[in-house]
């Protein structure tokens, strides 16, 4: 990575749910074109970070900057403009049950961009092929698809408008090893083919090592370590060691 542009910045972001403080003045930079993986135990606020970046959840304190715009200060129309550059892949795909695969993937094309149906179908087929799905799924409902296929359709929907940033929430959770590996390949592919910046939230270390340029470990509301996969793998930090080796012994209590 030659040029270093900070495309996403979190500055002193705090967030509490009730009495539980999830993020505690957290700072994080994501560089243009990189894949940053955020690791950490369940419930430590990994997904909350993604929701802040996507503008789905306001932070209690701090600033979130995406492509030079402060997310918290944008009006709905401005936020929607920014969202054209951002694709979000949800943990359970979050496909719209009442719509077909085509209508799901083409959602923005039809609604915002007023693309004619024939053109949209060709466009959607192309995106489905990109995520390794055949074009004949177009008229199926999400309920007729397997978990892995649904995730791919979710990814196709996220990349439908050629985003510059893709946010992945637990992309491999609940998938069999083969499907997980296919999703990992896809994430790497997206970065290579589309030159997107990706933020991936996961606790699957195999996946993290495979897709990441950098890995950030979050614990107790803060980033406690950030570095290349090798740096994280060989880290001497007791918390990071415990997490990446998946050990019960260590400073993190097993709740």
């Amino acid at each position: 990575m030659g040029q270093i542009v900070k495309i996403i910045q979190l500055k002193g972001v705090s967030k509490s749910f009730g009495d539980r403080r999830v993020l505690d003045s957290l700072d994080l930079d994501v560089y243009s074109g990189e894949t940053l993986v955020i690791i950490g135990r369940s419930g430590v606020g990994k997904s909350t970070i993604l929701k802040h970046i996507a503008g789905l959840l306001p932070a209690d304190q701090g600033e979130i900057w995406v492509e030079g715009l402060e997310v918290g200060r944008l009006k709905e129309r401005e936020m929607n403009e920014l969202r054209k550059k951002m694709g979000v892949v949800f943990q359970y795909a979050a496909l719209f049950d009442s719509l077909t695969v085509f209508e799901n993937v083409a959602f923005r094309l039809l609604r915002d961009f007023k693309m004619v149906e024939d053109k949209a179908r060709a466009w959607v087929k192309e995106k489905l092929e990109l995520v390794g799905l055949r074009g004949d799924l177009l008229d199926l409902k999400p309920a007729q698809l397997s978990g892995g296929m649904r995730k791919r359709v979710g990814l196709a929907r996220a990349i439908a408008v050629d985003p510059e940033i893709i946010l992945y929430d637990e992309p491999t959770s609940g998938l069999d090893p083969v499907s997980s590996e296919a999703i990992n390949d896809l994430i790497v592919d997206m970065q290579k083919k589309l030159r997107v910046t990706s933020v991936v939230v996961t606790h699957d270390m195999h996946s993290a090592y495979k897709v990441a340029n950098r890995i950030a470990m979050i614990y107790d509301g803060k980033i406690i370590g950030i570095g290349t996969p090798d740096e994280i793998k060989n880290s001497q930090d007791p918390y990071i060691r415990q997490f990446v080796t998946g050990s019960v012994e260590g400073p993190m209590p097993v709740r």
Partner: protein
Amino acid sequence: MKSYIERFGKVLSYFIHDMGEMVFLTLRINQQMFVKPFDGKLILQQMVRIGVESIPVAITTALFTGMVLALQAGYTLETKIKGVSQFIGSVVSISMVRELGPVLTAMVIAGRNGSAVAAEIGTMQVTEQIDALFTLAANPIKYLAVPRFLAFTLMLPLLTIFADIIGWFGGLLVSSMKFTSSSVYIDSTRNSLETGDIMGGIIKGMFFGAIMAIVACRQGFATTNGAEGVGKATTNAVVFSFMLILISDYFLNAVLIAMHF
């Protein structure tokens, strides 16, 4: 004693909070209604679901209500007040058109469609589909609540008119079989029923439609805790709709009567 007061206070504060949220939702729906794009297809889809697909249950409800009304009115007028069964037509038509047509139709639709809307939006909420709508630049209030609000508010008056006619016809059936001739029933209706009676009922239907739409959407959007939460949202949508329909019915009647409807 103190704990009862505390609990009452808690329930009251939830109630006030809920009402406030619903007022807020109503304002947001009305604001989003005029934002482009105009979702004609979605509105039509909801109108079919709420209006057309509810016709069988609306018919059954109205028909039997009209029949029961005629039976009760006939019995009362003939055996209790004695010999005034020629007024069955006016009793049935006025009760049906002013009160039972709009209220019972609203109850049935709240049970049938209000619950469905709460369950659908609630499921979308707990499966992150609402978040997904945001990320795809579709405001969920606009995409989900506005079409449902419009469909409920437009279809309830139509279903009310429908129920009025069917109920009146049910009354005619029973009355002509058991009490008076059909021409007496029709004359009695003609002599007492006024346009204002019908209009009042239709206006009430519109209000009830708006109320159940707001209640159902609010319960759906506020859903948390997975499948259990969806169940709770669905139950709440029906219970709150019933309560608010009955309570507002009294006040709407008071206003309508004051306005000579």
